[in-house]
């Protein structure tokens, strides 16, 4: 197990998480209700309440490297049930943003899926599911993802072969462009 030096707490990290999530992580008293309700705990390396604890103690590295923040499904169970009214899902989101910004991608396939999705939106203005799948398979190298579903999907006409590009797709593309220019301060 990893041993933390509590004196090395990264106060800047704590402050940044609090500022970006608009949450006071000190309100967390570690009751574990978020972990208790979280459907994703079984794939986590740190449970949600442990993530909250690590944020409280400023263990930036441990958080940004961890798997859990990538696997959170934003199902809002933690936020809804927190007795201290902390928007835990938002804290998880913010940790993931920071991990991305610092170049971490511990759960690579999840990151690639999100990237592929947004790329598709940037290009077409809407999510083009077949193109997104193709992009994901190429980028992740997992070319057999869901091929078993292909016959069902195609037979039932669930996936159109062509994207639905919209007229305003330049507008959407410009959203991404401006976002990139503004960096994380956008």
């Amino acid at each position, binding site marked *: 197990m990893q041993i933390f030096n509590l004196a090395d707490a990264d106060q800047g990290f704590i402050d940044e998480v609090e500022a970006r999530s608009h949450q006071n992580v000190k309100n967390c*008293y570690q*009751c*574990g*209700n978020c972990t*208790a309700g979280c459907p994703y705990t*079984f794939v986590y390396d740190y449970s949600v*309440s*442990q993530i909250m604890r690590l944020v409280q103690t400023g263990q930036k590295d441990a958080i940004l490297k961890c798997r859990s923040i990538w696997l959170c499904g934003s199902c809002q169970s933690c936020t809804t049930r927190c*007795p201290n*009214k902390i928007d835990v899902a938002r804290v998880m989101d913010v940790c993931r943003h920071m991990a991305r910004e610092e170049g971490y991608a511990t759960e690579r396939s999840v990151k690639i899926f999100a990237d592929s999705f947004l790329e598709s939106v940037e290009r077409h203005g809407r999510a083009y599911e077949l193109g997104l799948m193709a992009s994901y398979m190429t980028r992740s190298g997992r070319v057999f993802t869901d091929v078993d579903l292909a016959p069902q999907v195609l037979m039932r006409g669930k996936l159109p072969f062509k994207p639905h590009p919209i007229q305003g797709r330049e507008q959407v593309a410009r959203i991404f462009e401006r976002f990139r220019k503004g960096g994380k301060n956008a």
Partner: protein
Amino acid sequence: MRIGVFICHCGSNIAGTVDCPSVAATALTYPDVVFSTDTMYACSEPGQDAIIQAVKDKNLDGVVVASCTPRMHEQTFRRAVERAGLNRYMFEMANIREHVSWIGKTKDLNTGKAAELVRMAVEKLRRNRPLMAKRFETTKRVLVIGGGVAGIQAALDCADGGQEVVLVEREQSIGGKMAKLDKTFPTVDCSSCVLGPKMVDIAQHPNITLYTCAEVESVGGYVGNFQVTVRRKATHVDWTKCTGCGLCVEKCPSRKHPDPFNENLCNAPSINIPFPQAIPKKAAINASSCLMLTKGKCGLCAKVCPVKCIDFEQKDELVNVDVGAIVVATGYDLFDWHKYPQYGEGRYKDVITSLQYERLLSASGPTGGHIKRPSDGKEPKNVVFIQCVGSRDKSVNRPYCSGFCCMYTAKQAILTKDHIPDSQSYVFYMDIRSPGKLYDEFVRRAMEEYGAQYVRGRVAMIYPKGDKLVVRGADTLAGTQVEVPADLVVLAVGAESAKGAVQLGEKLRVAPDQYGFFVESHPKLKPVETNTAGVFLAGACQGPKDIPASVGQGSAAASKVLGLLSKAMLESDPAVSRVNPARCVGCGKCIQTCPFGAIKEIQDRFGNPKAEVIDTVCQGCGICTVTCPQGAIQLEHFTDNQILAEVNALCPPKMFANFE
């Protein structure tokens, strides 16, 4: 005027950052100051003696002590100047410790500030005048509101102390929550065996008058002389005749309304005696379910009653009681756990409260002391206890710890194992709060000897699967999620203020806190007093408490009552508002704004309306003084002139700004 000033060093507490001799020297330049000195500990015996000596030697008629906060030692020094032969109000204090030496780092600035605070005190003292307390007689009788264990203890102690006691209880029997418990922690002794004899004492004590099914309707008057009206609700049974034989209870055909004594686990007959040890052991009719009272037919009870005590025409009755003191012991209510929708909101029958579980454990309960779960009557094997349901949870506006749930849960886990040896208890907890004599040992026993599985974490949801309830929680020590297939889930619901507490508080002029618990006079030093003189608190109405603490407070409140009523005459605080009839125009604004009803309208000899302060009721807040458009009503010891003198001492008036 001849004023003496004493600057206290408080060891190094003040002298460390304030130049006390220099302050004393400066004080000598203030008007009317004829003597000024610094002293090591003004509050010590030699310190007080020195003040007394100086008053005599220097012929002083006023004293200023600059030391700690007046909230600490004002009374001490007032008594000292009184011993020196001065009126106790010819004294002022300057707070140069909490407000100067402990918060400022720079000695020069501190010294200057201290000197100015002394100057303010001197200027105020120059406008003080001797005030005399009024003396009045008291009624030697006590009202105890609430017949739970705290109220029972207070009533018995007062009665044993020789005072007459009127005990008013809302329910049909006294005993409160404790009467519903099976066993008590940490000794696991039988609750009704402990409480029962005390309840009988209440019934038999010659000094105690007991009104159950009764509530306080109104309260007037003031310490020593309260006038209370009690509403005795109609029971439709003449209790002067009822022998408690129970024949009517047996025969009553209407058994469809839930039994509140058994926490609605079963139904009760419409005429009922709530439990075998009830005091008084009298039957009462539930008017909302009685066939005779709702539909006009039946009357079986009246037919079978051997003493003919059933009276369907009975009405509420108002009783007036004069008392000198009041003990409030209205207890608490259980948190409504339906506010946690994740626990099923009542959709799952086998999710019950801890108090319902007590009834299942109790031999006098609906299952005769056999643990049977409500849904199908099966004996549960896996019992899950969830703590902090309605405690320490901001999201349901209950951020406080209810204090006793950890302990009763440990007790219930132990009793579960006693009742069902092959059962397994799981306790979801956040922290174990067991700071009492033999308390923590008791919790350890639940784990070590009785094998209760303690799991540190909250429970996020309960859902049914087959005939089990799956409890999904966290084990934060293991760092993961856990699930328990439970046969029965017991919610350790927290305590909240009793229903109606706020309304009762209004009648008694006792302020509730934001959660409805009554506020004591001082959290440490006056735990059973309230800010309304003559009204005392006992038990959980002041905040969640376990039985020993409630009993302790009951006795404490009784001792305060006995102390109060042992005096032949009471003195009122003379720092109250006073009306100058010459300036009063009788507009009545002060009467409207007074929160205590301490001002009444009178007529002067020309028939003009005037305001008059009832000294004994006035609490000395001064709201009326600011309200009065004429400046006719002044709060003694805090008059406009006295406060303005302090302002002027700080900010000397300029020539053109002199409005006086």
